[in-house]
C-alpha cells in the first residue's frame, strides 16, 4: 500500500505514464464514499442542522468533530469489507447469521427507508414552493425524473449525475458567508465544547444530530457500491480516502448549515420548524441570495437522496433474498427489483400529495425503525469485520477495534434514547 502511495507522489520521469494511470485509477475508484456521505445530508439532515443552528446557535458545533470520527470509523469498515470480501453487507449477514435475522432486519430497513423517501419528497415539495412551484407539479415531476434516470439510464450516467449533485452542496458555505457569522466564536465553539447542558432540548438535539448522520442504510449502500465498482484489496487504499474525504465534506456542509442558521435565525430569535422554513426566514436577515441558495441546496439534497435511498434499499433487499437485481436487467427477470423500487417512489410521492396524510406519524415510525435497525447492523458489522476467515489480515487492529466498539456503544445508547425520546414525544402529544 505504501509503495503505491509513493508512486503517486514521487514522480520519476520514466514513470510518467504510470503516474497518469494512478490518477486515472483514483478517479475510477472514488465515488461510493463521497456519494454515500453526501446523501447523508438529505432533507431530514438539513432540517436537523437548521434546527440545531436556529435553536442553539453555535453551541452544538463541537459535536461535529466526534460525529465525523464516528462516521469515518463506521464507513471505513463497510468499504473495507466490500473490497476484501467482494460481497455486500446484506449478503454477508445472510450468509453468516441466517435468513431469519436477515429477514426481520430487511423489513425494518424497508420501513425506515420508505419513511425517509417520503421525507425527501416532502423536501422537494417544500423547496420548490420557495421558488413558487406548486407541489402538485414538482413532486410528480421529480418522481418521474428519478424513476426514469435509474430505470432508463446506465449506472455510469447515474453515478455521474450523483457526483455532480454533490458539487451543489457548496451553496451552503456560500449561504453561511453571506450570513456574516462571528467567526471567532464559531471556531471556539467548534473546537471546545462549552455551555454543554443536560436539559431535554439540548440532549434531544444532540441525539438528533448523531442519528441523522449515521444511518443503517448507508453501510449497505456504501459496501454494495464498493463491490459493484470492482474495488479490490490492492486499490482499497484509494477507497479509504474516498470515504474519509466524503465524511469530512459531509460534516463541513453540516457545519456551514448550522453556522448560517446560527448567525441569522438564532441571533434574531427566529423560531423555525423545518429547512424550507429556515430558507424563507433567512431572506430578511441574510438577503435574497442566501435564502435562494439555501432553498436550492435543499432541493438538490432532496432530489439526490430521493433517487439513492429507494435504489439502495431495493438493491440490498434483493441481495439478501437472492432475487435478481440491476438496472440493466429486464423487467421479466428482475420483477421484485422493479416492483419494490417503483413502489417506494410512488409511495413516497403519493404520500406527500395526499392532503390529510399523517406525515409526522409516518416519520416517527420511520425514525423508530431506523433506530431499531442500527444497533444490530453496527454489531453485525463489527463481528464480521473481525472474522479472520472473511477478512484475513484486514481485520480491525486492536486500537481501531476499541474506537469502533466505543463508537458503536455510544451510537446504540444515543439511538435508544432517540427511540425512547420519540415515544416520549408521542405520548406527550
Amino acid at each position: 500500500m505504501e509503495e503505491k502511495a509513493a508512486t503517486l507522489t514521487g514522480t520519476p520521469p520514466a514513470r510518467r505514464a504510470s503516474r497518469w494511470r494512478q490518477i486515472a485509477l483514483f478517479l475510477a475508484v472514488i465515488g461510493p464514499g463521497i456519494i454515500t456521505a453526501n446523501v447523508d445530508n438529505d432533507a431530514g439532515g438539513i432540517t436537523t442542522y437548521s434546527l440545531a443552528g436556529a435553536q442553539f446557535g453555535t453551541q452544538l458545533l463541537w459535536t461535529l468533530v466526534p460525529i465525523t470520527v464516528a462516521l469515518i470509523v463506521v464507513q471505513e469498515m463497510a468499504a473495507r469489507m466490500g473490497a476484501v470480501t467482494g460481497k455486500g453487507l446484506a449478503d454477508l449477514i445472510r450468509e453468516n447469521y441466517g435468513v431469519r435475522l436477515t429477514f426481520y432486519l430487511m423489513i425494518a430497513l424497508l420501513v425506515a427507508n420508505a419513511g425517509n423517501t417520503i421525507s425527501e419528497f416532502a423536501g422537494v415539495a417544500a423547496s420548490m414552493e420557495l421558488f413558487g412551484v406548486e407541489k402538485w407539479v414538482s413532486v410528480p415531476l421529480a418522481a418521474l425524473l428519478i424513476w426514469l434516470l435509474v430505470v432508463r439510464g446506465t449506472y455510469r450516467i447515474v453515478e455521474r449525475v450523483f457526483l455532480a449533485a454533490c458539487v451543489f452542496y457548496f451553496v451552503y458555505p456560500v449561504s453561511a458567508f453571506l450570513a456574516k457569522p462571528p467567526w471567532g466564536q464559531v471556531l471556539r465553539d467548534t473546537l471546545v465544547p462549552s455551555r454543554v447542558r443536560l436539559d431535554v432540548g439540548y440532549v434531544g438535539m444532540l441525539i438528533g444530530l448523531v442519528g441523522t448522520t449515521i444511518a443503517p442504510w448507508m453501510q449497505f449502500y456504501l459496501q454494495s457500491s464498493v463491490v459493484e465498482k470492482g474495488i479490490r484489496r490492492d486499490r482499497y487504499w484509494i477507497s479509504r480516502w474516498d470515504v474519509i474525504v466524503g465524511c469530512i465534506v459531509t460534516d463541513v456542509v453540516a457545519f456551514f448549515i448550522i453556522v448560517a442558521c446560527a448567525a441569522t435565525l438564532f441571533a434574531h430569535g427566529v423560531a423555525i420548524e423545518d429547512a424550507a422554513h429556515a430558507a424563507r426566514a433567512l431572506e430578511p436577515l441574510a438577503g435574497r441570495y442566501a435564502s435562494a441558495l439555501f432553498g436550492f441546496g435543499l432541493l438538490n439534497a432532496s432530489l439526490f437522496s430521493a433517487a439513492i435511498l429507494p435504489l439502495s434499499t431495493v438493491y440490498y433487499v434483493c441481495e439478501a433474498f437472492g432475487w435478481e437485481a440491476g438496472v440493466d436487467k429486464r423487467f421479466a427477470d428482475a420483477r421484485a427489483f422493479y416492483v419494490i423500487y417503483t413502489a417506494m417512489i410512488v409511495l413516497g410521492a403519493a404520500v406527500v400529495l395526499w392532503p390529510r396524510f399523517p406525515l409526522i406519524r409516518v416519520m416517527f415510525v420511520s425514525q423508530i425503525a431506523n433506530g431499531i435497525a442500527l444497533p444490530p447492523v453496527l454489531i453485525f458489522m463489527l463481528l464480521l469485520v473481525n472474522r479472520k476467515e472473511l477478512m484475513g489480515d484486514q481485520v480491525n487492529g486492536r486500537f481501531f477495534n476499541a474506537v469502533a466498539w466505543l463508537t458503536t456503544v455510544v451510537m446504540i445508547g444515543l439511538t435508544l434514547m432517540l427511540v425512547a425520546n420519540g415515544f416520549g414525544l408521542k405520548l406527550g402529544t
Partner: protein
Amino acid sequence: MANERVRSEAAEGHVEFLYFSRLLSRTVVDAQGAPIGRLYDLSIALPEPYPSIREVLIRPRGPSDLLLVAQGSQVRSWIEDPISLSVGIRELRPSRRKEKAEILLREALLDKQVVDVSGAKVERVNDLHFLVARGRDLILAHIDVGLRGLVRRLGWEPAVDAVVRLLKPRARYLSEESLIGWKYVVPTLADPAGLRLALSQKSIATLHPADLAEILQDLPADSRRSVFDALELDTAARVLSEFDDPRIQEELLTEPRDPEKAADVLETMPPDAAADVLSELPEEDARDLIDRMQPADAQAVQTLMRHEEDTAGGMMTTEVVTFPATMTVAEAFAQLRRIAPDVEFLYQFYVVDERRRLLGFINMRRLFLAAEDERLGDVMAPWTIRVHSEDPASHVAEIIEKYNQAAVPVVDAEGVLLGMITVDDVLTEVLPLAWKKKLRL
C-alpha cells in the same frame, strides 16, 4: 403438487422427501433414547452424483462449542422426531476438521450462492431437499431457491400457505416448487481443491462460454476466482474473452495467482482476443504475462498490440491459413485436415506469393466445388477484397457488409498479408457500446 405426490408415495412406504429446514435443530437421541443434543449440520461426500449423508454433527446442550459426530449410517430413522441413533452417546467422537472431499451443508450451502448449471444463473439457496429411502438413507436431491423455501425457513409456511390458498387457490406459489437438481448445482466454495472436485462431475462444461462468463460476473470476486481457476484451460480461455468488463479480466489474470497459468490461458486464446485482453491490462502486468508466453504466441500478440485498437490492424487476428498459388486442391485439403484442430476460423483461406503478398482468397465453398487436381491460383477469387492495417473500423464494417464476406484480409502498404478480420470481431466493434457497458450498481 409435489407435496401431494410425496405424501401418497410415503403412505405406500417407498420414498419420502424432507427439507433441511425441518431437520435442523431437531433433537437427536441415542440408542437408549437418551437425548444427545440438536442436529447442527450434515456432511456429504463431494464427487458423488447422488450423495447420501456421511456425517451428522450434533450440538450437545450447554454453552460449549463442541460438536459430536455420528455417521449417517448410524441414524435409525430420519423421519421420526426426535431422530434416533443406533449407537450410544459414548460411541460418538468430537468433530475434527473436515476433509477436503466433503462439504458441510449448512456451512457451505445454506444461504450461500450457488451456480445453477441448468438455468445458467447464480442462485441463493433457501433450503435443501432430501430424498429419504427406506426411512434410513438420506440423499441430497435438490436445492430450493424459491419464495416458498424462504417462507419455510422463516417458519411461516403454514400461515402463508393458508392465506394464499384462501386468496388465490391456483397461485403458482402453491403449485410450483423452485427446486434445482443437485447434479446441476455447483457450490461456490472458497476452497479451490474442494471446488475442483465439485466441478469435476458437474456439467459446467456444457454451458456456453458466454453464459459462463455472465455467471462469473454475477459472483463475488472470491468465488469468481475459484470457479475460474477450476475450469479447464480451454474453457477458461474461451470464457476470458467473453467478459464485457475489462476489470474482471484484469482481476482474473493479475491477482495473486500462478502467472504461468495465466500465460497458458492467454496462449490458448486466439491471438487477437489475447491482444485485446492484454491491451486492457496495466502495462507492467501485460509485459510480465507476455514474457511468460511461448515466444511464437508472444510475438503474434505483440504485433497485434502495436496497432491502434479501432483500426483494421487492431481488430485483426494473425491466425490465418495461407497457401501458395501452385498447390493443388487435394494438397490443400490434406493440409487443412492437419491444421484444423488449431485454427479457429476455417472458412476463408488466402493465396500468397513467396513474399507473403496477397494474391487472392478462397472460400471453403469454392474449395469444395473445385476439382481435386486444379491449382489454387486458378480456383481463387480473382477480385481483391482487402483492407489496410490503418483503415478505421467503420471502413472494415462497410467492406464486409458490401461484399457479404465472413472475413476480410488485412494487408500493409506493400500488399503483404498481415492477418484477417472476421465478422464477429467487426460486430463487437461497431455495435453501440451502450448495451454492453450498462453496469449494475
